């Protein structure tokens, strides 16, 4: 289990987070863009490629094969990196990874580091840690830069600032870029981007170390692969003295051909592009005749509980390639956004992964806050059975007696009757009659005891009166006798 000292999870307060999110007008405006754009773009991209579903199968199989042989692919990958003059560091925990990165920075006398977008860096709380050690981390992905200015976590794994409106971003830029003329026009997104580009260009050129994540690690060649649209990851890793790749161990793929399969599903699932603009394979440090590139190349391989996940029912989660399609299609995410989930990974993938990383005792709400609508699994490029795994977490929770007492006692009460069909028949017949009588005039209830969660927002229909089974029985003769079970009294 990771230490989350620097990244306190608010997942236990999911319900409160969700309530505030629903009341946040700016957030609700921003979320509208997710629902419309991402979904339509993905669908169009998938429709343009007849082999898309076959590629999803292929992508799933590649990840499954790699995970089943992960020890051997890690060794092969490591050998290649070392052959090309790079360094590989294994980190068991987030704390280990932070220390390794700090040591590299210290050795180089680094004062500023530029960063490409990395969810693993968020997972280990790298920025706060480096800052506390006197090293200034600068996020360079536009969205990450914006949320760094606001001291926020990303609310989406590929669009970190998707929860913000341009007006909010404008006011942050005016606050932080105080050296620029106050009268400048920042109304259009283009002007905001141009300003960020200029500010960050200086940072790129001045940075001592560049830290990126990796979308994939290729065992065949010892390459780390980053995929961006902005080009920030490339400036981050090309210009400084050293490039540090921070990647979790499940990012391995065997070969360049396997990489090609995954590339074909990643961008299409994420943004609906056929390819993201920049896909870069980096292999080792600057070569003797290279005019540019980093002098040192380090890979920090983070485990942080993943090697244990390989053993159990959550192994499939390690196939995840972080495209964000699950959250883009999630009605819960559309309603409350990413921050409500309370930690680094939001949406359906977060609802499965977060309990593995910070504990089901803290993240119990996440796999429960799902209608099991199944849209996430339907769009997942590596076909992760997300609803099934959310249910597995609910089972763990139930087994460990972590489910709320009200849920457990309600379930026990219901189960008592459900397991005794004839008694169930008596009870429901009575309930149906009483409720029907009470609700006859209006046909529905606007308040019911024990159902305020429902009736606070909706009416509840009154039963028609008499259960189906009782009426059927009256009309058609006695109920068919269940096999091997004594018949109860007829109603």
């Amino acid at each position, binding site marked *: 289990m990771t230490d989350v000292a620097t990244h306190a999870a608010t997942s236990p307060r999911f319900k409160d987070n969700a309530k505030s999110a629903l009341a946040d007008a700016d957030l609700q405006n921003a979320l509208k863009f997710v629902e419309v754009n991402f979904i339509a773009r993905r669908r169009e991209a998938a429709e343009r490629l007849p082999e898309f579903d076959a590629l999803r199968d292929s992508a799933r199989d590649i990840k499954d094969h790699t995970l089943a042989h992960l020890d051997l692919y890690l060794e092969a990958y490591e050998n290649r990196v070392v052959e090309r003059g790079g360094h590989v560091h294994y980190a068991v925990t987030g704390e280990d990874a932070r220390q390794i990165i700090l040591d590299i920075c210290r050795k180089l006398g680094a004062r500023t580091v530029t960063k490409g977008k990395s969810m693993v860096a968020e997972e280990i709380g790298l920025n706060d840690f480096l800052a506390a050690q006197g090293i200034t981390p600068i996020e360079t992905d536009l969205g990450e830069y914006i949320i760094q200015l606001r001291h926020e976590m990303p609310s989406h794994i590929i669009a970190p600032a998707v929860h913000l409106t341009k007006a909010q971003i404008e006011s942050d830029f005016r606050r932080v870029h105080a050296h620029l003329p106050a009268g400048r026009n920042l109304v259009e997104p283009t002007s905001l981007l141009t300003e960020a580009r200029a500010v960050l260009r200086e940072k790129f050129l001045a940075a001592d170390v560049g830290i990126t994540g990796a979308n994939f690690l290729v065992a065949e060649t010892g390459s780390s692969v980053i995929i961006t649209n902005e080009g920030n990851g490339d400036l981050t890793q090309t210009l400084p003295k050293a490039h540090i790749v921070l990647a979790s161990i499940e990012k391995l793929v065997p070969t360049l051909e396997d990489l090609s399969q995954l590339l074909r599903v990643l961008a299409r699932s994420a943004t609906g592009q056929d390819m993201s603009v920049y896909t870069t394979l980096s292999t080792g440090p600057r070569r003797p005749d290279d005019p540019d590139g980093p002098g040192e190349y380090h890979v920090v391989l983070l485990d942080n509980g993943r090697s244990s996940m390989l053993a159990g029912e959550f192994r499939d989660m390690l196939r995840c390639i972080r495209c964000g399609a699950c959250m883009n299609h999630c009605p819960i995410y*559309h*309603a409350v956004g990413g921050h409500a989930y309370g930690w680094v990974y939001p949406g359906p993938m977060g609802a499965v992964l977060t309990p593995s990383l910070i504990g089901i005792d803290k993240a119990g709400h996440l796999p429960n*806050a799902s209608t099991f609508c199944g849209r996430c699994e339907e769009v997942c490029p590596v076909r992760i059975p997300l609803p099934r795994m959310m249910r597995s977490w609910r089972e763990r929770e139930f087994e460990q007696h972590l489910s709320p007492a009200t849920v457990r006692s309600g379930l026990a009460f*219901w*189960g008592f009757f459900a397991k005794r*069909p004839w008694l169930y028949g008596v009870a429901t017949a009575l309930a149906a009659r009483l409720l029907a009588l009470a609700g006859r005039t209006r046909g529905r209830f606007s308040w019911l005891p024990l159902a305020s969660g*429902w009736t606070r927002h909706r009416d509840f*229909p009154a039963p028609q009166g008499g259960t189906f089974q009782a009426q*059927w029985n009256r009309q058609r003769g006695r109920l068919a*006798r269940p096999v091997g079970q004594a018949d109860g009294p007829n109603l």
Partner: protein
Amino acid sequence: MVRRIGLLVTCLVDLIRPSVGFATAKLMEDAGCIVEVPRQSCCGQPAFNSGDRTAAREIARQVIEAFAPYEYVVVPSGSCAGMLKVHYPELFRGDPNWQPRADAFAEKTYELVSFLVDVCRVDRVAARVEAVATYHDSCSSLRELGVRDQPRRLLATVQGLRLTEMRDADVCCGFGGAFCVKYPEISNAIVSKKAAAIAATGADLLLAGDLGCLMNMAGKLQRDGANIAVRHVAEVLAGMTQEPAIGMPAGPPPCSPPHAAESREGEVKR
């Protein structure tokens, strides 16, 4: 060929809206099936989705036994049919005695409309319902069972009915079983969008194949004051719309579903 059907009516239909059960029975009988109703409670989904596998298994065994005598099990609900067809086998995976039984049970289980279209090869109904209707795809029907075109195909043959598609018909209504009471605010946000999409079609009738979703959407539409009748798709296909719509008061004489079942005009043609 006469098919002997065990009707699993679902606990919600049993308790709240028996007329859906009678409409289901009529549709199947019109398709030449013999319908029986073994004593039943619930499919076990509440336990299964709450993480109580033991209780879910116990109930599943009971259901499998109760329906053992039947050639087919038909369910007027995508989510309960999905439980029987997709999740029962999952519950007993690796159990030498029960896995084969659960697999065989899954094999013979169908959601009502897909049973009519895919098994009985019904291609039209003789019902007449004057309305502009919009159809909501319940998540389980659509994504667990692949039911999408079947209801639309049959609804297109209902006289007087015009079908109009809502935006995002395939998006969850926010019901989600216990979800809607565990996370009522989120559920409300989702069903509010759904209600808006329904209202935007101008339809005066909302249809779906799952009573849970229907109650959720009807409850929201009615709370919002929208004048849209809400019914289970079986009621319309069977031409049994004499009963007040979901959540609507019974006009005099007070509701009496068994009689309604006799006074229908619709008839299923094969």
